[in-house]
């Protein structure tokens, strides 16, 4: 059975994980996060990714985070492209490759940058025999945002833009994971606060590579509820990006790791591929995916 909460992995993954090249140093918190956000969008434009999404209950053994059970693993392929006058909206489609029971499940998502405009998602399940709209909507401080494929990543964690809805403070310069970082705090304004479960976020941005290495998310009571760890930071198409992202839910002691096994950008992706046709027309989808794969070689 497919979880009602699964949600398409948008091409725009994770606010803090991609970054541009080194820039000037006289930047405030907003400037830094804006650069990270812009770079993220650029990195995802016309992209094709192969991902492995692993989730498990976790604990600590001998000072290391370990899985307390065999991880549940999903293999996904995702195609994304930016749209709109300033390429601020993203359309993406994700197809499940594994496990076998979910093979062929496809999701189409339109993520809008515009404040107050809900994103849209459609799902295709062969058992249903048709495309089905999924009401994902916005969350608020009481309701949880939709999960990505049943993982600890949520739609809120994937959002780009809308930085104007936050007070952004540069707290300090420090180190984490052996790297010099800016510690930046984001607190939602009143309107944004009504749509988020996080009352405060703290991001650690690599000062040299402009990559987020760690994020902490706090609930309305000031308790840290989730933590995002980034690793395997590599230069991909002149953009530093983290290929391994791990979201730890500190309330449920469950974590999810998203590994970007293969990343390809600047591909020639037909607009028609990011429509409902890709979900229902498997002959068309496979042909277009072959065309994309041909561009990779």
């Amino acid at each position: 059975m497919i979880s009602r909460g699964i949600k398409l992995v948008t091409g725009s993954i994770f606010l803090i994980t991609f970054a541009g090249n080194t820039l000037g140093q006289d930047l405030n918190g907003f400037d830094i996060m804006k650069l990270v956000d812009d770079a993220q969008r650029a990195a995802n434009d016309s992209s094709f990714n192969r991902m492995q999404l692993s989730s498990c209950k976790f604990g600590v053994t001998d000072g290391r985070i370990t899985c307390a059970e065999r991880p549940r693993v999903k293999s996904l392929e995702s195609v994304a492209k930016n749209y709109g006058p300033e390429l601020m909206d993203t359309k993406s489609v994700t197809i499940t490759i594994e496990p076998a029971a979910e093979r062929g499940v496809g999701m189409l998502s339109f993520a809008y940058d515009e404040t107050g405009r809900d994103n849209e998602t459609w799902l295709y399940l062969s058992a249903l025999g048709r495309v089905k709209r999924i009401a994902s909507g916005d969350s608020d401080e009481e309701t949880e945002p939709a999960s990505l494929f049943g993982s600890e990543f949520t739609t809120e964690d994937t959002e780009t833009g809308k930085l104007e809805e936050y007070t952004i403070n540069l707290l300090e310069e420090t180190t984490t994971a052996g790297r010099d970082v800016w510690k930046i705090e984001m607190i939602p304004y009143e309107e944004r606060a009504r749509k988020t479960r996080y009352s405060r976020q703290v991001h650690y941005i690599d000062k040299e590579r402009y990559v987020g290495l760690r994020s902490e998310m706090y609930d309305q009571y000031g308790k840290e509820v989730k933590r995002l760890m980034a690793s395997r930071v590599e230069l991909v198409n002149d953009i530093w990006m983290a290929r391994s992202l791990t979201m730890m839910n500190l309330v449920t002691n469950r974590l999810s790791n998203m590994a970007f096994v293969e990343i390809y950008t600047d591909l020639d992706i037909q607009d028609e591929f990011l429509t409902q046709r890709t979900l229902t027309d498997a002959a068309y989808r496979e042909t277009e995916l072959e065309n994309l794969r041909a561009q990779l070689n």
Partner: protein
Amino acid sequence: MSRFCKRAGLILIFVTPIALSQQEEEPNLGGEDILSDEIIFDDNLFGNVFDESPNNNEESWLEGFTVRVSQQFYGQVNNHSVEPLPGFSFPRKAEMENNRLGLNIRYQNAFAPGWLLQASGQTRAYWNEDYEYRANGGKIDAEYRVNEFFLQRSFEQNSFKFGRQTVVWGETVGNSVLDVINHIEFRDMTIIDIEDARLNQWMVVWDYFGEDSNWSSFINLYPEFNPAPVRGSPFFFEPQFNLTDYKRDGDAIFEVGTQWRKSFDLSDISFMAAYLYENQLRYEDPINNIGDALAKKNDFILLGFSANRAIGRLLLNFDLAFSHNVLADNFNLPGISSLASPLDLEKDQIGTSFGFEWAPDNDQSLSLGIQAQKVLDEDKGLLPGQQLVNEGVFGSWLVRYSNIFLNNDLTLASTLQGDLEGDSLLAMLSVNYTIDDNWTVEAQVISINSNSNSPLIFFDEDLRIGTTISYSF
């Protein structure tokens, strides 16, 4: 019943060690430790996925296969009696109904640019105490069936699919008035969702993907009808005359339909029209009461509209159907018709199904669907003393709820369905546990309550329990 319970217990004993064997040494789950900066996180935890070389090689044709093997036990466990008419009752004993091994195979291969072959089929082996085993004279029986089998060709804005397939219209999940194109088979109580009951037919489907909207049209080259109950199944009763399939006698019958669909911001709408045959055949007594019952088909025109609207995490669904010249008595069965029911009377009918789906969080979902239909001009064509089987507004309602536990491994789902008159209630509770990416085990409890105004009176106070273990790869 005791033997049935023993078998179910055996399965659970068999499954439990698999689940337990996956539990490794229990780590410390203390929150304070985890928040410490001294704690090391190593993403090799998930294997050396990054060390594998990118795989852009040609895929083997064998990779298109998905296989599921399952063993199912099911039984009616409540010893009781049913009284459909005052003074007439019969016993319902507890007994095993299903003891069967199933193999489902699905194959999909995009073998050339723009071409795709898709097929799926199933085979079942009926073991000792299965109702098919008993109907087969106490011998192990097997059955094979091709479900999907179509070739698809897509080019430019068009896609053509030739072969066995389904066409699903309507937005309301589970009981849409527009979901009438493919015939269905509720063979036994293990199939209560229409998604599982829908059967494939030989069709040509043409989809046109326009810039702003899509068209989907079909021609059904060999319309089929709901099969009669299988001998031995819970739905089978010994009819006065054999219920056979429709005898075509060389008739070239077909169905045709088209749908236009468009998406707006947070909403989808579609209009549709079709020339169809009613999936349920009408049975009449044979001439001179000799031979098999006569199966009569009926064609009709369907006009429909459907829409949905997303509001936050709430999705509203709406379907509307107008049916021209449907039979007012298509559930007629030989031997039980009466002069008070009209014969071969064609009527227009209007129906709607509507409801919502709501997911308050990532683990829970709730849906409600209500289907309501009404025959127009009810009295027209009726002889004095005759009345319609369905007078006024008739229909059904369906509620589904599911909740996910144990890190998505355990799904608890329940279904309630009944008719609008409140004459019957079917309640189903299921627990599905995913042991790993291959193994799942499911247990179900189904209870039925009905009064004598509903056909479900024959299953009143039935209580069924069952379990299915599956392996997919």
